[in-house]
């Protein structure tokens, strides 16, 4: 670890002012990812701007929209009555992630910004295009059991590890960002990026920006939703595959449906084709199977993760079935 400067601020304005002075500075939220990366020498910021005291912890309903501040803790969101009632998918996804101790300090903004858990990314002695562009991808031809099967690039097959983000993409969230000049809004689905030729970029946050809050429209999906996380142990493990599924059913017909997957791509992966297929159809196993199949159209394995080609569609079926079966 190298020396760094620690700064603390209490307003987003001053946080952004500090950031504008030094683009190599980083915001420190819960620190559960950033500090690990610093210890491993993966990231070496010279300045840490502690934003934990910036008042962006609100969780509230405004009109038809739920607002969640970027510094609300993962636990605060997951345990909030409003979220449990209106957005159980989000609460369940959050509670499927990490451990209680981590969730207590991890923040919404930090969760969105967390970096991949690819072992090569973490080991500075190994090649990794994400950490060091041009050095090669260790996972291709190496240990890639945890890696992506959808939207992969020749440069990087890492997955975004977040559970929360899988629910957020399914819930049509919007992200509010700010720089010194003001705020801008971006759809959650456009926040994270595919690796493409620039695997070093995880998302579209600009270097002078900060995540301020999320805006999530309320919906009629609360009753029939399920977050399924398939993992190597029952808790405290990243997803092999996860599926956020939510259904609105009336007269046995699917009137609205949301489907998204984690553990399969460089970003949270919305299953638009599968959704379109299911809309207006009966919530039957046969239709779920067809939707799962559609989701895998362009999927591709890299050896050790080939099992995901089967686990992913299986999990879509299972998650839809469980969502439907909720009374």
């Amino acid at each position: 670890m190298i020396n760094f400067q620690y700064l603390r601020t209490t307003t987003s304005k001053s946080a952004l002012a500090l950031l504008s002075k030094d683009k190599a500075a980083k915001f420190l939220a819960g620190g559960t990812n950033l500090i690990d990366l610093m210890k491993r020498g993966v990231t070496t910021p010279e300045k840490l701007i502690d934003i934990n005291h910036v008042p962006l912890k609100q969780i509230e309903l405004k009109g038809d929209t739920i607002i969640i501040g970027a510094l609300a803790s993962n636990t605060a969101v997951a345990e909030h009555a409003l979220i449990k009632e209106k957005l159980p998918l989000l609460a369940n996804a959050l509670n499927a992630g990490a451990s209680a101790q981590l969730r207590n300090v991890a923040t919404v903004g930090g969760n969105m910004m967390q970096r991949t858990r690819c072992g090569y990314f973490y080991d500075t002695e190994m090649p990794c295009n994400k950490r060091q562009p041009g050095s090669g991808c260790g996972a291709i031809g190496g240990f890639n059991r945890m890696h992506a099967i959808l939207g992969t690039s020749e440069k990087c097959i890492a997955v975004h590890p977040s559970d929360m983000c899988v629910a957020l993409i399914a819930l049509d969230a919007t992200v509010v960002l700010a720089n010194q000049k003001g705020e801008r809004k971006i759809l959650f689905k456009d926040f994270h990026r595919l690796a493409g030729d620039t695997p070093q970029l995880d998302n579209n946050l600009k270097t002078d920006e900060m995540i301020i809050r999320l805006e999530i429209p309320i919906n009629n999906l609360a009753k029939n939703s399920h977050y399924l996380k398939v993992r190597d142990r029952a808790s405290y493990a990243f997803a092999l595959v996860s599926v956020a599924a939510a259904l609105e059913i009336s007269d046995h017909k699917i009137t609205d449906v949301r489907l998204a997957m984690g553990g399969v791509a460089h970003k949270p992966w919305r299953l638009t084709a599968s959704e379109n297929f299911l809309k207006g159809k009966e919530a039957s196993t046969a239709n779920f199977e067809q939707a799962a199949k559609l989701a895998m159209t362009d999927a591709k394995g890299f050896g050790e993760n080939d099992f995901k080609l089967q686990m992913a569609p299986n999990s879509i079926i299972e998650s839809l079935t469980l969502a439907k079966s909720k009374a």
Partner: protein
Amino acid sequence: MEKRMLKDENDRVDGVFKVTGQAKYFAEYELPGLTYGVLVTSTITKGKITTLDTKAAEKAPGVISVLSHLNKPSAPGYEQDGGSPMKIFYTDKIFYNGQPIAMVVANTFERATYAASLVKATYAKEEFNTNFDKAVADSKSKKLQGQPDYKRGVENAYKTAEVKIEEKYHLPIETHNPMELHGIIADWRPNNQLTVYAKTQGVKATQGTIANVFKIPIENIQVNSEFVGGGFGMALRTWPVEIATVMASKHVAKPVKLVITRMQMFTMVGNRPAAIQTIGLGANKDGKLTGITHRAFGETSVYENFTEGVVNMAKFMYQCENVNTQYTVVPVDLGVPIWMRGPGEATGAFALESAIDEMAHALNMDPLEFRIKNDPERDQQRNLPFSDKNIKEAYRIGAQKIGWNERKNKPGSLIDGQLKTGYGVSIGVFNANRGRASVKGILKADGSLVLQSATSDIGPGTGTGMTLIASKLMKIPADKITFELGDSSLPPAPSQGGSATLSTVGSAVNDVCVALKSTIAELAANSNMDATANFVDVLKKNNLPSIEIIKQSQAGKEREAYSMYSFSIHFVKVNVHSLTGVVKVDKIVSVGDSGTIVSPKTARSQMVGGAVGGVGMALTEESIIDHRYGRYINNNFADYHVPVNADIPEIEVHFINKPDPYINPMGAKGMGEIALIGFSAAVANAVFNATGKRIRSLPITPDKILADS
């Protein structure tokens, strides 16, 4: 300090200490002038260090010294040629990736960490192989006999049997990963006096190893290790990094503390070796075994050899005239392995107990019935009677508790929606050891008893067991007894390993108590007191503040007349999800057959811990290496999956609790190892019963369940 707050006689004597943070572990000792060592490790897998630039590190703030092969800090025992233990800082050779090549000593941990990052090495790389499977398959790779071949009756008799199976089983590297990180504090003083605070399973062993390397008298070395935060076998030797820390302290003439990182726990302090095993079983149609062949390959390193008892169980566990075994170790370019709980027997039992289940299936027999049918009356390997064995009773208890009668012999019969339920059983067995140990007893006129022995407690509750033995014999309440351990100046005892401490040290406790009682009786008689007089009165009458006796105790001829083993039976119920492939253990029943249970609570904890370790071995634990680089990939607690609470169901523990008439005065046999041995096979067998899928490669992760569907 108040040692206890006993509510129940059987509570852990140090339980309150542990849960209130008063128990002091090696890294918590704050010595005046303490300095901190941080290791620099190799980034290549094999070759030689060509240059090592330590200048920048030496100039960094707070740095006192940088030790490496360049300045060869003095260790006279390393000056001599030969000998296999790796001589740290006495060689420029690299044997594995992550090998320590230098140690930075600084006045704070942070400064040492920073300075270590400034040390730059260049290497002459050589070709290497860290892939054990590849080494086993390669006819040109080096293979060493790990144990003399064994043969009874006809070799490979299974091949001509009426019913036969021959299958291959695979175990990955497992890493011990106790919570407490490894390390040591060394305080080398003028006149070659040394005190160390160690994480060790044997204070006397640590003392001996250090004396050997530094060529100083044993008496000059004081080893303290009162509390150990888990060992599982990895603290059964004094590792090169501990020697390096002693070198450092001698070199800088200050106390030096080393605590290695979690990542370093994977490379330099041992692991359960990978293994590939083939089992051949033959039986007649009635279900009698006619041939057992167990051939095993185990991983070892190129610079030191490691072997263990992988094929032991096959030689005596089942009644069979024809048995042959072979155990071969195959070196790869990784750090040397070390015993991990259950050691080789746990590796072997996974293969043998899976194969037994496979055979029962081939015969269309209940696997429990099949085991009972082939249960031996005598130990055929040594041609001796067993001192004590109650397996059939253990089967009966376990079967009833798990609900074995719910089990269907046809796999895949119990289905509820996507969940398939299955039941599995397996057996564990381990040599019931008894070594030699000494204990000092100090019986005091204030009514208390102090017992002392240089044994260890890596967690099983040694002090509690010893206290209960003494309490029962002396009729002194447990809270009046103190058992002191983890101090090399106390009467000698062997290292804590191989489930032998209770038997070995407990016997010496027994003998001391017997001697104390007879001394009291003598004193009573001499002072005209009643023979049953209380020792406090007797001591007072004789104006004695206390009496002291040291006893050495060891096994006798009984070990030549009887075959002594501890046994366990594990029953497991699992639910397997047919779409996701996730295996969830739903219930566990373990039955221990290990003689008298001296300490019921800590004995139960041993079985519970063994079951948890067994779930890890069966379902989650695997240390993964990228063989292109020879580096570990999942060397942290997020990616190396030890089971969490949510993975563990209700665990029922039962004991036969009948004294072994021959083993030792308590009739008690060790049980730390049997808690784990065989467990993984019970899970694999339950998975087969649930799904019809036989997974012969651990851990049984969801992808493997999905693979052949």
